């Protein structure tokens, strides 16, 4: 890929339970992620996705440009903005800024849940 090219889109439609699975896997059991009633009591529309789960999807999309090699991702920085929710499709898009550097974001429709993501990919070919 060359500068200006789009990377392949990653589309994921979470079912009702990604926050529960991610809570178990990560140890982050903050009730805003797993308890809709609690989330609504603190003013959220429903339980929300973990920001670091969405970041992990951005990491997958970035690493996919190097065949998903776990060594390929050298650096990833993101800003968390809009809140992601279960049961809505997440689309991760990105473009090549320069050789080995990608600009990415993750969105659910118009709601951009991760902005200004920047990834550095290291060459893993021998």
């Amino acid at each position, binding site marked *: 890929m060359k500068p200006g090219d789009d990377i392949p889109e990653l589309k994921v439609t979470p079912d009702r339970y990604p926050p529960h*699975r991610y809570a178990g896997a990560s140890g982050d059991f903050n009730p805003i992620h797993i308890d809709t009633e609690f989330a609504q009591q603190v003013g959220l529309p429903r339980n929300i996705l973990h920001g670091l789960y969405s970041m992990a999807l951005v990491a997958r999309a970035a690493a996919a440009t190097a065949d*998903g090699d776990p060594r390929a991702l050298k650096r990833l920085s993101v800003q968390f903005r809009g809140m992601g929710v279960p049961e809505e499709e997440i689309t991760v898009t990105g473009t090549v800024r320069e050789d080995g550097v990608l600009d990415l974001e993750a969105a659910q429709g118009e709601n951009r849940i991760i902005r200004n993501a920047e990834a550095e990919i290291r060459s893993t070919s021998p």
Partner: protein
Amino acid sequence: MAVKTEAVGKAYPPFEYEVGKEKIAEYARAIGAENPVHFDREAAREAGFRDVVAPPMFAVVYSAGSVAPGIFDPDVGIDFARMVHGGQEFVWDEPVVSGDVISTTTTVKDISEKGGKGFYVFESVSTNQDGAEVVRGTWTNIVRGV
């Protein structure tokens, strides 16, 4: 009102985490990572890893326990109820595999205020049992109405 900045530079004791094969698999399933190197020892070895390898963002699993004491430290003074995770950066080096013992040390990197919001930045540095750096994390937490 201003944020207090005396805690900048403060370091917390190392946090140790032993990486397990099934924990890597559980995490990989939770984020939808399907590469067999996260599940199958033979596939991981064929790809040149010492053992089943963690997805990069598994960094959260072994380093978050090191950052938590800083977030709850009264010297830092974060109002947890009004805190949001504003930004995150990881810089990866040596891959993390099953059986590794990862030690993470967190320091308060910066505390500042802008437009009524407090910005609390922590840096975590994780090394494996051989002393090799595996990841460096920068965690930015934002508190509204400081």
